[in-house]
């Protein structure tokens, strides 16, 4: 698709959303058998799977920390997740995304409970549609809870951006490709910021308003994360009481 003439008409975006509206979101908890915790997430056209292993032994040994667990995060895009086939394997972008995503989640994990061990988070993007790092963090946060990792809070993430000189929540692919700014944000349930990146052009005022919009979006996602976990746990509890 080439650049549309207008992204917003009569206050409505090309995909029918209002400027501060998230795309449809669907969480599924505990979708994998081998992982200690897992989550499948659809967020707009994004389809991601997150898996958590741990706390477990650290290999190689010299990466161990004597007083805390180490947290590792591996974000990967499937080669078929994008229009033009992506070469398999890590690249510079996935390396950066993995780093900031890890740092978005690490502050809510009680790492001091598991010295010398590792908590491994794997995120696979099966289909990409702008906002994959936010989707990955949302899924990973739920997968951590599903794995029973003690956490101070869930972490919720979404991006705010600018198209047609207007701030909009949760950019889709075209808004991302042709927009003026993209700012992914992750927050704890208290609204503390654990990830913030910005590309593009924003005035200082736009930044401040945009940050509030993103936080509002994250708060909505947090409710969905909680609901998905509740549903899983009540189902498990039910299953157990039926045994």
């Amino acid at each position, binding site marked *: 698709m080439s650049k549309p003439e207008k992204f917003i008409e009569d206050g409505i975006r090309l995909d029918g959303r209002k400027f501060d509206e998230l795309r449809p979101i669907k969480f599924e908890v505990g979708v994998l058998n081998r992982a200690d915790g897992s989550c499948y997430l659809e967020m707009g056209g994004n389809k991601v799977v997150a898996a958590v292993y741990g706390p477990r032994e650290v290999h190689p040994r010299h990466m161990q920390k004597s007083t805390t667990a180490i947290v590792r995060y591996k974000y990967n895009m*499937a080669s*078929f997740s994008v229009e033009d086939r992506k070469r398999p394997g890590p690249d510079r972008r996935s390396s950066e995304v993995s780093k900031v995503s890890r740092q978005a989640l690490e502050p809510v994990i009680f790492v001091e409970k598991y010295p010398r061990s590792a908590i491994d988070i*794997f995120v696979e993007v*099966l289909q990409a549609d702008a906002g994959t790092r936010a989707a990955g963090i949302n899924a990973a946060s739920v997968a951590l809870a599903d794995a029973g990792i003690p956490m101070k809070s869930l972490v919720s993430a979404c991006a705010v951006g600018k198209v047609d000189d207007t701030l909009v929540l949760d950019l889709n692919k075209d808004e991302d490709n042709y927009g003026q700014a993209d700012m992914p944000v992750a927050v704890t349930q208290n609204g503390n910021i654990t990830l913030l990146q910005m590309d593009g052009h924003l005035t200082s005022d736009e930044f401040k308003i945009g940050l509030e919009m993103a936080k509002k979006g994250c708060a909505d996602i947090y409710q969905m994360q909680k609901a998905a976990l509740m549903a899983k746990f009540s189902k498990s509890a039910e299953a157990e009481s039926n045994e």
Partner: protein
Amino acid sequence: MSNEIMSELRKDYIYNLAIKEERVDGRGFKDYRELVIETGIINKAEGSARVRLGKTEVVVGVKIQPGTPFPDTPDKGVIITSLELIPLASPEFESGPPREDAIELARVVDRGIRESGSIDLSKLCVEAGEKVWMVFIDVHVLDDGGNIMDAASLGAIAALLTAKLPAERYGLGTDADLPMRDVPVAVTAALIGGAIVLDPSIEEEAVAGTRMTVISNQEGALSGMQKSGTAPLTTEQMNYIVDIAIEKAKEIREKFLEI
């Protein structure tokens, strides 16, 4: 009691069950686990499939784009099959470039498709020596519950059967189905003690001395075989496996009529 001892006891248990002609999940020796195939799940891919085989899950995406043919086959399309055993799918898989096991799986899936002639590669030529269609088959293993080989192989075929040549996108005519001619099906047997079981689960794989994959086509002929593992097989065992694999493949192939 430590995990290691538990696991040894569990192995003995499975082993002894096999002697009694039983399996830990109650299946008969020739039974497959529940098989669910969904297609068209990734809309950025030209073809895609999700296969659930018991607790095993793989997603296969097919990307198709124009490229240059190999010098020795200037008038034929190209198939490239990749498979990684990513650590998301099992605590036993490690990060990094694909290792032996992943390479073997990818190559066997690839040969099954290639050698059975299931894709008519000569119809994937756009301009001889210059431009042909490149078909990238990427197998993404999400959950290793055992017998990735068959799940991957089924997923690859399902994704190919539903894939479209994106000709319009590249200004090369109208979109079309891939020229599929056959539906090869891989059936894997495992040797546990003296017993031969089909579709081994991850627990069964742990005690199996060897696995034997037999790929057969819709005429019931063989289009690929691979022994994997250190336990030897007698000629009788080998011939028996070939016979039951061909039979089982026919049964599984029915699944594809539903796609």
